[in-house]
């Protein structure tokens, strides 16, 4: 039900946007031939632009997978009763959150190899920077999610002698995950958008490819319009997917 509503919203948005371009096309000097599927060069250009999609996806998905794990590991000390242990969480979150993602990308790609004496690929520099930055937000999301689970659940687990790891793994996290799925979905969308920043170090994702095509074809309006549409469609699809997953998990729990 909801998913159709969502898709139809996406379609409406697209139509409005295309309509807007068509109308404005009357006054502006459009040159859609650069990406026209009816010409040889147009097809090549379009293929080049869309080819960035796999890198955008690979970057975002790898980064979010890592940041979820790191975020959880950072969230757990944040739930401790001991102040010094909680401090680990606070310091990490505050520090990482204070650094702009773009700065982190530059630092990891240009700076890290010098102190660590390693060579790092553009892709992994991007993944590390995005994951690091996102992990601070993930840590906060997990902490809030775990804290939202009723105290009685911990007590019931303790009363059947479950240890800390089993309590988290079998009782608390499965319930917390269901609750934090919406903010996790938001983070994935955010990550897809922020992955465009990795273009500055030369990652061949959507934004970088658009930039390169603009340089050779000198048609910024058309190329960037395509870029806008690429992100729009991608993100609307991902949002719909997240909603679908949310509903499935909720019906699983039957609460």
């Amino acid at each position, binding site marked *: 039900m909801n998913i159709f509503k969502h898709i139809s919203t996406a379609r409406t948005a697209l139509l409005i946007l295309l309509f807007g371009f068509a109308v404005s096309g009357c006054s502006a000097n459009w040159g859609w031939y650069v990406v026209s599927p009816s010409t040889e060069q147009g097809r090549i250009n379009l293929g080049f632009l869309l080819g960035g999609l796999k890198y955008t996806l690979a970057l975002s998905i790898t980064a979010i997978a890592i940041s979820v794990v790191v975020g959880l590991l950072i969230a757990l000390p944040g739930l401790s009763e001991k102040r010094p242990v909680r401090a680990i969480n606070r310091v990490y979150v505050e520090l990482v959150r204070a650094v702009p993602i773009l700065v982190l990308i530059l630092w990891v790609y240009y700076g890290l190899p010098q102190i660590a004496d390693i060579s790092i690929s553009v892709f992994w520099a991007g993944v590390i920077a995005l994951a690091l930055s996102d992990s601070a937000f993930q840590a906060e999301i997990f902490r809030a999610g775990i804290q939202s689970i*009723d105290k*009685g*659940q911990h*007590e*019931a687990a*303790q*009363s*059947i*002698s*479950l*240890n800390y790891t*089993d309590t988290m793994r*079998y*009782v608390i996290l*499965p*319930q917390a995950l*269901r609750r934090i799925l919406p903010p996790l979905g938001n983070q994935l969308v955010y990550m897809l958008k922020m992955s465009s920043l990795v273009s500055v170090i030369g990652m061949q994702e959507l934004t970088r490819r658009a930039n390169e095509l603009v340089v050779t074809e000198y048609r910024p309006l058309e190329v960037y319009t395509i870029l806008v549409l690429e992100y729009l469609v991608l993100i609307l699809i991902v949002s719909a997917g997240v909603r679908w997953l949310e509903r499935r998990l909720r019906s*699983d*729990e*039957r*609460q």
Partner: protein
Amino acid sequence: MNAMTPSNQLIVLEDVSKMFGDFQALKDVNLTVKPGEKVVVCGPSGSGKSTMIRCINRLERHERGRIFVDGVELTDKRTDIDAVRGEVGMVFQQFNLFPHLTVLENLTLGPLRVRKLSKADAEARAMDYLAKVHIPEQAQKYPSQLSGGQQQRVAIARSLCMEPRIMLFDEPTSALDPEMISEVLDVMSDLAETGMTMIVVTHEMGFARRVADTMVFMDAGEIVEKAPPETFFTKPRSERCQTFLQKILAH
């Protein structure tokens, strides 16, 4: 057996005190429970009934005094706490079933993870106890699909699956609709007949009269009265207990 433990007592509380900040929830509480003994605890709201039984399986940490369960003294040591929790089952007012697991999974989690039973053995044991609480047909359902009375019986079965020597009940029927109270009390009476050692916080005085060996009345963090039911209900010594009994027996 610990040399300090008074002999043939399963649970011993010695001058146990508990603070919540500045507020003293338990004041020098002394209580002993023999194997197989049924203790029913009553008293006004806020008198420390929950706090007392929660100290026995370390859901609360007592500050002063000593608690022994089957000869093991409860200290901050993990091994002691685990040893005691292994012997003590607990049933909560709000059931606290795991909502994302089926009834069967609720029951097998502890046996699988803690007792290291095989899946087949854990499930056989779970079905056995589900039959004892009269709801074997609900095994595949989720807690939210059951009535309150059924949920509480699942919670009892979940504790029993750990095969504890002692069962603690904290107002197990207070969250239930009136028509479901008896099905839970019946299960508890059956359990009492098996010889299980039980401490039950409840205001169900009919149940108390039938099942209790010892009645305990608490007020303001203290055990004010402790007596066998016959004496407790007919000639309570303290005035506080008399007033309390009049109030709850009136309705």
